[in-house]
């Protein structure tokens, strides 16, 4: 059996590595066709990774991407497609920013302020995702459709609330408007990274904690078992006594809660207020990273880091005359090839295991034995 699990682990690694190599070759081909030197591009990217600023920024991007991926993965594990992480985190970040920047917070201890801001973000995200879960179990509305629509509604709600007459104030010296800035006591300080002007988000630890909790929930709790069982086979889960409707609502709430955290490292670590220029679209990146990392807590961490680095590298490419869109192509190709490679490996593995077990037992029957 040891041999089997070793081979199985090797196969698990073969899929992403093979897919990455394939994606890189394909990108090289595209570069050659568009008249750029792949060698030079690689050279540029390698150089950029050595720059401290790129490292710090990549880590920061990866932090938000990872949180977003975990939110998506919680749904994926149950075969629920929470496309609405984007709307959930934007609405959550704005509400959290409004609470965190509110004047009454000034008198509270720093720890409590930060905690309250985070809790508000999680609650808002959970409620927003919960609407989709509720609609699914009561009215049978596909969560794909409802979360996409909720994204649009979130955009409108944020636009409505982000108005000087309501939650927003003008940002000094610009046309921008945003929520009242969170004062120092409500912020989470970052770490200096030698040689880099940008700091590393202090809440990178929040992402690590969320990753750990995600792993623990899936592998160590009854709830996680029910969740995985429902994802693997809904009919078997029902027969085993899982209340699928309850699980749908619970996992949407959890997914939304995690989604609520996506904007928090940026909010408390750098922006300090939710303004018109707050990063958007992170929810969709999360889907790609969850796919790339196969919903695995560690896999998604690597995927988030890769993604973060590619994002940063695109800036460097632009400077050296290579269109930075090449990075977007690269990301797309990586996701597609990884998804395909995983499915191939999964099927191959199952067949291989079946054969190995048959061999180990020597029980593959001859026709005579079966018809006897």
């Amino acid at each position, binding site marked *: 059996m040891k041999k089997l699990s070793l081979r199985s682990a090797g196969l698990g690694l073969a899929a992403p590595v093979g897919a990455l190599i394939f994606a890189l070759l394909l990108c090289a081909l595209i570069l050659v066709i568009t008249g750029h030197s792949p060698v030079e591009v690689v050279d540029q990217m390698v150089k950029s990774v050595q720059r401290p600023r790129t490292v710090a920024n990549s880590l920061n991007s990866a932090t938000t991407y990872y949180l977003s991926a975990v939110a998506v993965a919680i749904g994926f594990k149950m075969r629920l497609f929470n496309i609405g992480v984007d709307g959930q985190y934007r609405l959550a970040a704005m509400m959290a920013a409004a609470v965190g920047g509110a004047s009454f917070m000034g008198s509270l201890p720093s720890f409590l302020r930060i905690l309250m801001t985070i809790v508000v973000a999680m609650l808002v995200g959970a409620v927003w995702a919960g609407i989709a879960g509720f609609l699914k179990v009561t009215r049978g509305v596909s969560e794909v459709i409802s979360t996409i629509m909720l994204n649009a509604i979130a955009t409108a709600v944020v636009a409505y609330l982000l108005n000087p007459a309501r939650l927003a104030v003008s940002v000094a010296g610009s046309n921008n408007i945003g929520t009242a800035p969170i004062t120092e006591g409500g912020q989470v300080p970052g770490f200096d990274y030698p040689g880099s002007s940008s700091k590393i988000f202090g809440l990178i630890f929040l992402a690590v904690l969320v990753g750990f909790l995600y792993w623990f929930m899936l592998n160590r709790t009854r709830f996680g*078992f029910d969740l995985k069982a429902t994802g*693997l086979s809904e009919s078997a889960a029902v*027969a085993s*006594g899982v*209340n699928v409707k309850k699980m749908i609502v619970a996992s949407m709430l959890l997914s939304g809660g995690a989604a609520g955290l996506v904007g928090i490292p940026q909010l408390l670590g750098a922006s300090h207020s939710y303004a018109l220029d707050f990063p958007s679209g992170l929810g969709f990146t999360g889907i790609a990273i969850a796919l790339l990392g196969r919903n695995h807590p560690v896999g998604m961490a690597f995927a988030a880091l890769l993604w973060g680095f590619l994002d940063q590298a695109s800036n460097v490419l632009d400077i050296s005359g290579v269109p930075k869109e090449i990075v977007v192509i690269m990301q797309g190709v990586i996701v597609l090839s990884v998804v395909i490679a995983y499915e191939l490996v999964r099927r191959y593995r*199952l067949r291989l295991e079946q*054969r190995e*077990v048959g061999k180990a037992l020597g029980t593959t029957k001859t*026709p005579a034995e079966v018809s006897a």
Partner: protein
Amino acid sequence: MELKGITKRFPGVVANSDINVGVRSGTVHALVGENGAGKSTLMKILYGMQRPDEGTISVNGGLVDFTTPADAIAAGIGMVHQHFMLADNFTVLENVVLGTEPKAGMGLDFKAARAKIKDISARYGLGVDPDRLVDELGVGERQRVEILKVLYRGAKILILDEPTAVLVPQEVDELFGNLRELKAEGLTILFISHKLDEVLSVADDITVVRRGTTVASVVPGEVTARQLAELMVGSALPVPELRESTVTETPVLEVRDLKVTSSDGRTVLENLSFTIHAGEVLGIAGVEGNGQAELVEALMGIRPLSAGHISLSGKDINKLNTRKRRDAGMAYIPEDRHRQGLLLEATLWENRILGHQTKAPNVRGPLINRKGARADTERIVADYDVRTPGIEVAIASLSGGNQQKLIIGREMTGDPVVLIASHPTRGVDVGAQAAIWEHIRRARAEKLAVLMISADLDELIGMSDRLSVILRGKLVAEYDPNSVTPEELGSAMTGAGDKTL
């Protein structure tokens, strides 16, 4: 059409071995056999969905080799599936041309298709209106649309997979009328069924399949339904039997006036009442699709009741959900272990937890006790003789019999009071079958109330203390297994019996 020496192996099992069938052109040929006898595999081979490992197929004297259904269609073979494959929001015409749309330049030439459908419909007396929405059609009409669909594609040989399973008796008569007309027009029909009375009334030749191989070819005039049932059931199996009676007077599972309605509004179970006592096995005999699956799901709380009461050890459990019923001591061996009993891609020990997510040693409070679950899986593997190289392999890699033994081991753990066993030995080899029977005997000796549903009449007669027959959602007859014969039971099951019900 002629099949010679067809053999098909799947990992661990042989689904078909040395199948020989000769179908005369222009006849209705019936293929009969129990569930799991290998009919469906054979059918898939005929229709190009699977390739045989050995053997040859010839059509009109020429050897053929199908790799996809398209090859089979090209050779003039058409399949009418048991479950209709029609788009409800399309008209009959649109459904029929779907996939082979007649093109006229850039557009579609519906006119020619409509004329062709009307022509086929009239020629074979199918009475299908091409412009009606499929949504508005009844089950019998939908089936005729399916038949028309394959005729439209030029099929000369029609395979009908259990076509009567979804029909009411009048519709069955209509279908048989259609089949006779198709035959009169020179088409060949391969009719797959296990309803013997129907087979005898419509077929010209009958081939019996048992345990993956053809055991007899007979002509309806020369056999009775009883003889056919004997051929189908066979007698080569290890004999299931119970030892001394362990039946007590304590009622454990009581079911009163159960009524269940399916999602499309049909009544699938009605006025169903029975009591099972501690230490008693109640066997339910019946042809597949007469309400057995619904009964089991209603008992387990998976399917809602329309009326009636279920009580367990004197307590009403109508309101309890599946998990609470399991916690109250209801053990469940589902009829389709792949769909309801297992997480195929999960390991053995994870599957040991399934259905027992609330019980020690699998859990400790809200947490999974991996160590406890693993240790207990090792115990089940040893006690129930589950042949596996370890408990960390995916359960999908074990044979059906070993999967089933793990399920039984898991369900017998945790002091159950009721065991609901739905087709406990379906699709398992002879060795596992004997072992599973032994476990059921042990459960009975431990004073469990056992409800056993099976299609294997010998198993039912041998393993039951009491036997009921279910037909169209009702319990229609009760027998003493000590005196009943498989033939009598078979007759009652198909409603063809001379016994007044």
